[in-house]
């Protein structure tokens, strides 16, 4: 037991390295448009947009305007929301008003690490937004990761709503 304890303490003193950045936002945008990303556009979060964004997030949006990238019927967004104590940075691609891809780019929370993996984010693919600003399919949570799951769901709802406010929003024929 003494030896085990000693070895364990030695392990703690190993050189540590940072973690939490899984893809740089710029790289996500680059990949989203196959290396040919359009210039960033900006959407002002004022008036009704501010009101709806506040309803979705449960608090006022942190910025008066948001950058996004759009081409054809697709837009890409880099959004942040705090889970329990740290901001979670998420890249979201929307195509024809439905989620094409959700990727957690930066995750610094001490709990809820599962949400950054594909087995969780794949649930969002092809999901859309109801008139009530709720997702049109249920998302299964992860025990012990309630706040991180909640943060991702809010960001996906927000991205879908903001997409509908852009010129790239798809109008069904």
């Amino acid at each position: 037991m003494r030896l085990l304890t000693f070895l364990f303490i030695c392990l703690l003193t190993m050189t540590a390295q940072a973690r939490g950045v899984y893809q740089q936002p710029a790289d996500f945008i680059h990949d989203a448009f196959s290396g040919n990303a359009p210039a960033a556009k900006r959407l002002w979060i004022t008036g009704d947009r501010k009101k709806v964004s506040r309803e979705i997030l449960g608090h006022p949006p942190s910025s008066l305007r948001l950058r996004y990238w759009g081409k054809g019927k697709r837009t890409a967004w880099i959004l942040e929301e705090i889970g329990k104590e740290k901001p979670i940075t998420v890249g979201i691609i929307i195509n024809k008003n439905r989620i094409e891809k959700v990727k957690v780019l930066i995750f610094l929370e001490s709990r809820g690490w599962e949400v950054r993996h594909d087995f969780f984010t794949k649930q969002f693919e092809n999901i859309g937004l109801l008139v009530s600003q709720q997702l049109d399919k249920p998302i299964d949570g992860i025990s012990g990761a309630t706040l991180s799951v909640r943060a991702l769901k809010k960001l996906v709802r927000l991205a879908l709503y903001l997409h509908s406010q852009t010129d790239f929003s798809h109008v069904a024929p």
Partner: protein
Amino acid sequence: MGKTHTTHNYLNANDNDLHLDLFYVQFLSLNILTGLTRRRFKMKYPNLLSKSLLLSALTTSGFASAATPTPTLEELWTVIQSQQKQIASLKAKAAETEEKVEATGEALEQQAANNQASHSKTTIGGYGELHYNNLEEGDGDDFKEIDLHRFVLFFGHEFNERTRFVGELEVEHGGVEADGSPLDGELEVEQAYVELDINDTLSAKGGVFLVPAGIMNETHEPPTFYGVERNPVENIIIPATWVTGGAAISNQFANGIQADFAVHSGLQMPTTGSSAFRIRSGRQKISNASANDLAMTARLKYTGVPGLELAGTVHYQSDITQTSGDGADAATLLEAHAIWNRGPFTAKALFASWDIDGSAIAAAGGDKQDGYYLEGGYKLTKDFGIFARYNEVDGVRVQDEFDQIDIGFNWWPHEDVVVKVDYMDRENDNNSDRDLDGFNVGIGYQF
């Protein structure tokens, strides 16, 4: 009508000219202030231009008075040039305003980013719950109580990207006794550890932390579970909240598996008195805690399928009393649980069992202490859910051997606030006087 009529008379033009006039009057109303347009039309329709300019001037002046002298072309030209200058000036101002708005937007974006960065260093949170119990014991005695069961403040601080502090300070039952006050609670540190990221998936922590066992021990904020009181299995068999001091490592694999291993202070189970061999009474408060026999805990947890959690824990301590020769020695806890969440439906199952060596504890019937529970919950709406739970507990004390049914509901007026109501019916295995039934009401929150 009057204006049109007057205009027609004033122009006194033939029909063809009039049609052309009206068309170009409209055109010129839009473009009259651009020199290019003016020159182009003057060359093509020298007569029309003068007529149109006159018409424009008349319609904009509103025919203030028939007595007003007719402006000359030169005067009109002066007015137009003046308006051109004003428009040019307005355009310049609009461009300047656009630039200012853009700069303000950039500054706001930067400020938002800075605020987020500065906020991320130190964070404060918390949770708490107030309970009302209205219960009747088997012998007819009532148990009616209002209790501020927990009030917990959370503090986090990030030293740098790979090193952080997590702390929780808990006040139980309203406070601690001081100067003869009636307070009957505790003030204690529930968590106080420093965590280091060793690499992308492996982290280590040292300090006071929660033993990785069961469902409730690490995640027990009131809005996250059904029932006013925590389930009795994770009270009597797994002594949640089970706080310990030591060191731990945790590795998170990409397929959803998490492995934890901890070396930490062990239990110090009493061997005499009314709580002899009771697991819960063996918890030390990390206050000059005995460390003659450290304990080890290992856990494997799988959350690779959304909505599913499977976990198992093995805990071992070479002497659970930390005193040799007292008839209670090596102890092993095995725990396993499953959580299945699909849409509004949640199912939980947990089993935990202690196996403790020693003649004295065997004689007292405490060498095997175990329990399990099964719980089903269903959210009827986003804010309202019902549940039912069956608990079976086999502890060492007479009052710790029973089965219990709980049914009730949670109402979340906000996602971080919950109001709970439940009915419980406990049947003691040994003595019906120890039965307990009645209802509980609680309010809880987290932030």
